[in-house]
C-alpha cells in the first residue's frame, strides 16, 4: 500500500527494565492504520512513556499513533472535545487551559497520549475526587484488523468500550475519543501537611478527599520510613491573573530520560536526597501553586530519573483497601527495616472507585514505590516480598507500571483476572495484539 513503511527500532520501557529491537510503523494517514497484513501481530503505541513494555514486544509491530494528534471537534460551551488518540496530554492542557477548560485526570507525564491514558485507565492528581480517565470519556473509535472501525460508548458496543479501558491496547487501536472537560480551578493554594508515617498520611488523605490535588511523598529509607508530606491543592477564591498558563512543550519531561552513566541513587545518594526533601518540603505551610505545576510536577524531575543510571528503576504500585491499610503499612515498615531496599520515593494517593477488568481502581490507599536497580538480588527479593505482603492485605497491583510482576502474581492479585482475560479474548480472538506486558502477565 502507498505509504506503508516499517522500520526496525530499539525501544525501551521508561523504567529501563525491558529493551527490544522491534518493528515500528508510524502511520500518518487513516488507510495506513489498517495497512498491515491482517494476521500481523501488532500493538498501538502512544507516547511510549509507560514504565513497562506495554507498547512493543518481540515479534510484534508497534504502531505509533504520533501523527494522529488532531483536534476533531471542540464544543467550547458544553466542554466536549473529540480528539485523535495520539494527542499528548500536555499539549491538550495547553490548548484547553487557554480556553477555560481542562482535563481533570492526567498522569504525571505530559507526553502520555489520550490513547495511552485510556488503555491504561490512568489516574490523576486525586482519583478519589475525579475517578480514573474512563470517567471522562464519552465515546471511542476502535480499529481492529480486517474490520471496519467501531464506534463504542456506554450504550453502543458497551462491552468493547469497557474492555478498552485498562485494555492495554489489546482490544484494538483507538483512533479517536470524545472527552468531557471540566472547568479548572481559578487558582490553587498548596497546603503541606507533614506526616510521621504512612498510617498518618492515610488519615490526612481521607480527610481531604475533595481537594482537586491530593498526594503524599514519603521517605522510603529504613531510618525514617513513611515520614513525609501530604500535598493538598485547594481551589482558592483569590483572583487569578488571567488564564492559567502551562509552560511550552519544550519544558515537558522527555519521553526517555537519558540515564547518568553511574547511579546517583545508591544508599548515600538516597540518604542525602531524603534529607534535602525533608528540609525543603516537610514543613506545614500554605502557598499559591500554579495549576501547571500541580498537573506536571515531574517536568522538573529529569535529574531524578536520570539518577537511576543504566540499571534503571521499577515502580511497584499497590492499592490496599482502607480496613487493611494500617496493617499493610506496618508490615511494609518492618520489611524495609529488615531488607533495606534502595527505595527512591514513595507516593501515596486516595482512591474511591470500583475496579473493572485489569484496571487499577478500588477504594483505599495506593502506594507507588520507586526502587533503584530492581534487578539486584536485594531489591528483587524486596519487591517479591512486597507483592506477597500486598496480596495478603487484599492489595491490587497497577499492572501497567510494575515490570517486576509475573503472570502468577497478576492472577492472584487482580480479582476478576480470569474474567478480564476472557473479555480481552472475546475482543481479540485470534490474539492479533501483543506486547511484552501481555506476554509476561499472560493477559
Amino acid at each position: 500500500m502507498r505509504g506503508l513503511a516499517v522500520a526496525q527500532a530499539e525501544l525501551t520501557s521508561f523504567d529501563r527494565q525491558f529493551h527490544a529491537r522491534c518493528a515500528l510503523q508510524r502511520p500518518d494517514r487513516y488507510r495506513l492504520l489498517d495497512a498491515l497484513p491482517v494476521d500481523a501481530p501488532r500493538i498501538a503505541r502512544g507516547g511510549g512513556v509507560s514504565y513497562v513494555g506495554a507498547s512493543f514486544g518481540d515479534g510484534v509491530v508497534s504502531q505509533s499513533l504520533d501523527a494522529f494528534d488532531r483536534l476533531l471537534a471542540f464544543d467550547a460551551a458544553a466542554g466536549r472535545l473529540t480528539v485523535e488518540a495520539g494527542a499528548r496530554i500536555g499539549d491538550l492542557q495547553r490548548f484547553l487551559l487557554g480556553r477555560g477548560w481542562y482535563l481533570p485526570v492526567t498522569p504525571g507525564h505530559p507526553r502520555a497520549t489520550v490513547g495511552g491514558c485510556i488503555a491504561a485507565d490512568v489516574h490523576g492528581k486525586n482519583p478519589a475526587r475525579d475517578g480514573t480517565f474512563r470517567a471522562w470519556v464519552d465515546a471511542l473509535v476502535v480499529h481492529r484488523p480486517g474490520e471496519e472501525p467501531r464506534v463504542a460508548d456506554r450504550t453502543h458496543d458497551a462491552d468493547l468500550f469497557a474492555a478498552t479501558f485498562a485494555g492495554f491496547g489489546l482490544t484494538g487501536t483507538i483512533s479517536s475519543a470524545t472527552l468531557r472537560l471540566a472547568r479548572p480551578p481559578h487558582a490553587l493554594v498548596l497546603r503541606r501537611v507533614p506526616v510521621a508515617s504512612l498510617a498518618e498520611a492515610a488519615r490526612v488523605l481521607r480527610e481531604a478527599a475533595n481537594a482537586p490535588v491530593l498526594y503524599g511523598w514519603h521517605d522510603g529509607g529504613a531510618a525514617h520510613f513513611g515520614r513525609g508530606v501530604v500535598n493538598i491543592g485547594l481551589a482558592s477564591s483569590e483572583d487569578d491573573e488571567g488564564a492559567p498558563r502551562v509552560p511550552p512543550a519544550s519544558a515537558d519531561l522527555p519521553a526517555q530520560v537519558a540515564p547518568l552513566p553511574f547511579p546517583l541513587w545508591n544508599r548515600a545518594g538516597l540518604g542525602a536526597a531524603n534529607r534535602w526533601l525533608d528540609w525543603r518540603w516537610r514543613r506545614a505551610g500554605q502557598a499559591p501553586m500554579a495549576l501547571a505545576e500541580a498537573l506536571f510536577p515531574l517536568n522538573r524531575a529529569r535529574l531524578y530519573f536520570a539518577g537511576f543510571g543504566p540499571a534503571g528503576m521499577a515502580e511497584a504500585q499497590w492499592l490496599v483497601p482502607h480496613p487493611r491499610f494500617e496493617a499493610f503499612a506496618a508490615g511494609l515498615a518492618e520489611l524495609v527495616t529488615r531488607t533495606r531496599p534502595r527505595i527512591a520515593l514513595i507516593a501515596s494517593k486516595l482512591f474511591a472507585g470500583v475496579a473493572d477488568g485489569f484496571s487499577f481502581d478500588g477504594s483505599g490507599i495506593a502506594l507507588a514505590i520507586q526502587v533503584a536497580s530492581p534487578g539486584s538480588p536485594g531489591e528483587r527479593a524486596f519487591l517479591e516480598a512486597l507483592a506477597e505482603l500486598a496480596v495478603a492485605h487484599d492489595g491490587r497491583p497497577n499492572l501497567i507500571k510494575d515490570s517486576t510482576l509475573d503472570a502468577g502474581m497478576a492472577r492472584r492479585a487482580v480479582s476478576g483476572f480470569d474474567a478480564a482475560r476472557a473479555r480481552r479474548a472475546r475482543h481479540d480472538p485470534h490474539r492479533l495484539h501483543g506486547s511484552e506486558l501481555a506476554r509476561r502477565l499472560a493477559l
Partner: protein
Amino acid sequence: MTAVVVGASSGLGRALAGELARRGQPLLLVASDARDIEAIGADLRIRHDAVVRCLALDLAREADPGARMTAALEALPPVTSVLLAVGLSRGDDDFGLDASRIGELLAINLHAPLAIVHALLPRLRETRGVVVLFSSIAAVRGRGRNVVYAAAKRGIESMYESLRHRHAGAELRVQLYRLGFLATNLTHGMRLPMPAVEPVDVARVVADRLQRGSARWYLPRRFALVAAIVRLLPWGLFRRMRA
C-alpha cells in the same frame, strides 16, 4: 488570500498547511483520502480559526485535477500560492517496475503538478501569485535507484525553468526547493547517509519566503554542497555509490 497545498495529508504538505493556517492564510487542502484532510482541516479550524476547504482527489487517477481544484476554489478568496508537496517514491523503483507502476509514479510526481499549474495559472497571474515546487536531491544525478522518481523530479525542475521563461517575475513567481532528507513516512525505515530534517522546520522556511521573488534553493542548505560533490564525482566513483 488562499494557498493551495497539494499533498497536504502528511509530511511536508501537512506541516505547510499548519504553518500557513497559523499565519492566518485561507487554505485549500488536497490529498487522496478525505478522512485525512478533513481531520487536518478540523484541527486547523479549531486551533487557528482558519478558513479551510478540503478536496479529496486521487492524483494517480484523476484525469483533470486542475478542473476539480478550480471549482473548489470558487468558495475561497483569490488564490495567491500553490504549494506542490505531493510526491511518491518506492523502494523497488530500480528498473523493476511494470508500466502501470511507472505511470503511477509519473502521474503523482509530474503529471499532477503540471496539470494543476496549467489550470491555476490564469488565477495566479491575476494575483502575482507564487508556484512552489519541490524537487529532490535524488534528481541531481541519475542512479540505478529512484529511476522514475528522479526523472519526474527532473521534469519538475524543467517546469520551474519553463514557468520562469514564459512569465516575467512581475506576473508570476516560481520557487523551487531541492530537498534533502525529511523525517517523513517517505524515509521511515531507510538507512540515510545523513540525518533527516523535520518537515515543520522546512515548512517554516518555505512560508517565510513565500512573499519573495522567484528562486531555487537547497533545503537544508548543506545539500547544496552534497549535490555539488555528487555532480563532480568521477564516473568510476559515482557508479559505486549505493546509498
